[in-house]
């Protein structure tokens, strides 16, 4: 069964290779993508079941024992995130297939989109599953490089700049990542995360803290924590909807995942997480205020994304089982909902021919279905009960209150305020875009521009995929009980890293 | 019948390259056994099959003794002219002068022209700056030249050495006649 851990990486990689090689056959590309991503969902579900019932599923690649070879490990946390992520990637693939067929016809194959999308999925899976710091770097690079390609695809003049910002900032943080790895290896002589967890503790406290903080910065850039977030609202909005959806849903979360993993497994003694509460507070506020200042729907959503990263940092800053439970729940919820919102934004943009809220209007009347598709995730994002966002937020608030420190109280209060501001932002979108008079769609200045295909219809697969994600977020809310159970167990695994460590390293390390 | 012959000939023309590539293979490994040799042949065949080059009849004939003489001359020339250039660098430095002299070759084939040009360029002090292939002229850049004629003499001597080392019989005749 352990091979199940490798498949979410190897299958999409192989499929990416095949879609590249079979670049001329559009149907084969589509089918391959759907099959592989569907298989990953099943695989992830099985992994989650196994990890929850019988402990982490560990695979030593090449049968080389840890900490020598590369270990892949699916514990509750990674399996859970993998499952949610794969549902999102699957739905988004359906969406983009629908969109591509609508815009370019059934015959249009792509040597770029399908392979890169699969690569992105492979990178995300690997980031979740790897138990090796350097391999995590490789995972990030697979993920990020394919994201560079996806964000620069069919770039228009006005958007080249945005993709540059994205690419360069990501590259800079990748270089810091290598630097960090070098420092880690120089001081410990290992890159296996479980092994590092033991060896880092032997370093002097100051070095542990410095290293942990460097790690926070490296992953903080990817996670878009303030003040390392600037690139996100400048770049995400410029990509086509499905791309932004996947970026917003997954990439920042992978950063958060890496933060959680390293802070709990490797730097549990470094107390760098104490800083996290302050960062969380600033992140929430700056993001939410940013959202209120926007007129571009996608930018508004991007700022909200930043703001809600603050929630995840909040839970990590509380740093106890309840806090981490909250983070995990929040990540699970946010992956789904943020992706959904960007997909809906894509549908809205196609419907109205603009991203500017002031030029929209009357959508609720003209397209009530879009209204429903928008309203549910919007409410969920704002943390309105009974949707998924509320469940996650509740757990975080409880954690904050339980922590009982002044800082925790402050952040808890800020979280509540942010919730209000998020709702305000969403309500403004609603009042501007969905209420009021129906406005004539904006003329399409460039019919080849994928971002705004003026008044193109949204095909059934696109709506269906969005609907599936909306339903997923509802299911997350309904299944909050079992989900919170798993998250709670995952969180206590994180707090007591022994499970992870012994699963990777085993009793007899040289066996 | 004729076709098969040309095909055979075409294969035959690949033989020198195959030998060269196998030699490279063996030299790289540094082990002279049957396995390496056979494998080298396979690799050489693979490379020349996958990436075919246009078959060109050069009519080159390798004559060991003149070839050795050519190599010896070039080696000696390399040493001597290195010293000369070094001297010039130290003696004249920024005030060094030069000239560009056109030298017409007697031979009229791409490969020999290239060989001669390479031979000229190998030695310090002068190199071929421009070839006028149609008119068989090599424009030679020479540092601190003693006169145009000495350059042309040098070119002619090298041409002679090269042709006698690897030129076809006809070309040898050509050089000998003119010389």
């Amino acid at each position, binding site marked *: 069964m352990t091979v199940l851990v490798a498949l979410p990486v190897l299958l999409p990689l192989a499929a990416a290779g095949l879609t590249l090689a079979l670049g001329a056959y559009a149907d084969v590309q589509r089918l391959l993508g759907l099959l592989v991503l569907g298989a990953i969902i099943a695989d992830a579900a099985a992994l989650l079941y196994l990890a929850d019932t019988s402990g982490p599923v560990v695979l030593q690649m090449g049968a080389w024992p840890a900490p020598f070879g590369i270990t892949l490990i699916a514990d509750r946390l990674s399996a859970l995130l993998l499952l949610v992520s794969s549902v999102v990637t699957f739905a988004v693939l359906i969406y983009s297939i629908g969109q591509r067929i609508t815009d370019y016809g059934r015959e249009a194959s792509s040597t770029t989109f399908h392979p890169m999308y699969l690569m992105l999925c492979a990178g995300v899976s690997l980031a979740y599953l790897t138990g090796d710091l350097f391999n995590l770097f490789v995972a990030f690079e697979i993920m990020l490089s394919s994201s560079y390609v996806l964000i620069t695809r069919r770039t228009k003049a006005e958007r080249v700049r945005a993709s540059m910002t994205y690419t360069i900032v990501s590259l800079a943080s990748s270089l810091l990542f290598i630097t960090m790895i070098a420092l880690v290896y120089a001081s410990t002589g290992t890159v296996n995360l479980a092994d590092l967890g033991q060896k880092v503790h032997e370093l002097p406290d100051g070095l542990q803290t410095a290293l942990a903080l460097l790690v926070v910065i490296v992953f903080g850039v990817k996670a878009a924590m303030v003040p390392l977030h600037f690139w996100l609202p400048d770049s995400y909005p410029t990509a086509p909807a499905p791309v932004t959806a996947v970026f917003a849903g997954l990439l920042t979360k992978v950063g958060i995942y890496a933060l959680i993993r390293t802070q709990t497994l490797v730097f549990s003694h470094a107390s760098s997480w104490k800083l996290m509460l302050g960062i969380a507070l600033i992140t929430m506020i700056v993001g939410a205020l940013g959202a209120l200042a926007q007129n571009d729907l996608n930018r508004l959503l991007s700022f909200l994304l930043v703001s809600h990263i603050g929630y995840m940092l909040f839970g990590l800053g509380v740093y106890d089982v309840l806090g981490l439970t909250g983070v995990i729940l929040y990540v699970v919820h946010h992956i789904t909902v943020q992706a959904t919102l960007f997909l809906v934004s894509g549908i809205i943009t196609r419907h109205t021919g603009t991203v500017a809220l002031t030029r929209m209007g009357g959508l609720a009347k003209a397209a009530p279905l879009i209204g429903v598709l928008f309203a549910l995730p919007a409410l969920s994002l704002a943390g309105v009960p009974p949707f998924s966002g509320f469940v996650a937020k509740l757990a975080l608030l409880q954690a904050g209150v339980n922590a009982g420190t002044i800082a925790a109280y402050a952040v808890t209060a800020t979280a509540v305020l942010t919730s209000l501001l998020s709702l305000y932002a969403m309500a403004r979108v609603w009042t501007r875009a969905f209420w009021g008079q129906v406005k004539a769609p904006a003329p399409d200045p460039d019919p080849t521009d994928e971002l705004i295909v003026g008044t193109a219809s949204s095909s059934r697969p696109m709506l269906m995929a969005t609907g599936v994600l909306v339903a997923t977020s509802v299911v997350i809310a309904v299944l909050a009980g079992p989900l919170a159970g798993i998250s709670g167990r995952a969180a206590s695994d994180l707090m007591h890293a022994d499970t992870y460590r012994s699963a990777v390293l085993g009793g007899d390390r040289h066996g | 019948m004729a076709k098969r012959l040309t095909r055979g000939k075409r294969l035959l023309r690949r033989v020198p390259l195959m030998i060269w590539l196998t030699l490279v293979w063996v030299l*790289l490994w540094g082990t002279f056994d049957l396995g390496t040799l056979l494998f080298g042949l396979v690799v050489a065949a693979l490379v020349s099959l996958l990436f075919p080059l246009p078959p060109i009849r050069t009519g080159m004939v390798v004559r060991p003794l003149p070839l050795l003489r050519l190599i010896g001359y070039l080696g000696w020339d390399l040493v001597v002219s290195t010293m000369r250039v070094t001297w010039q*660098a130290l003696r004249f430095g920024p005030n060094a002068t030069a000239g560009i002299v056109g030298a017409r070759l007697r031979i009229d084939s791409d490969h020999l022209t290239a060989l001669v040009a390479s031979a000229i*360029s190998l030695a310090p002090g002068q190199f071929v700056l421009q070839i006028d292939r149609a008119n068989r002229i090599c424009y030679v850049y020479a540092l601190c030249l003693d006169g145009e004629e000495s350059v042309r003499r040098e070119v002619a001597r090298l041409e002679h050495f090269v042709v006698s080392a690897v030129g076809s019989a006809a070309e040898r005749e050509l050089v000998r006649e003119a010389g």
Partner: protein
Amino acid sequence: MIVLDVFSAICLIGGALSCLFGAIGLLTFPDVTARLQAATKPQTLGLLLILVGTAVQLNFSLATGLILVGLFQMLTAPVLAQLIGRAAYRTDSIKRDTLIIDELGERIEAERHRSG
């Protein structure tokens, strides 16, 4: 063995000196084509000498690879010289006042004149 060592020492130091003189030439000569002389030729000689000097020190099976290095150097140096020289001439990077005679330039002028 001493003979070999001495031979090797001569080759190595000679080669290194040749490289050094080439570098000096590269520094002192007035223009790019002249520097090219200093650059390509003494370096080639120097490299060849060092290759030989090293080869003598190594056992035979390892030394064979060095032959290839030498061959490559001999094969590529003239081509590079010609390409750079030609580029220098084309881009007018040659200091014309250092040229005592320029038959190429004369001919180009003539051709231009003839063609109108």
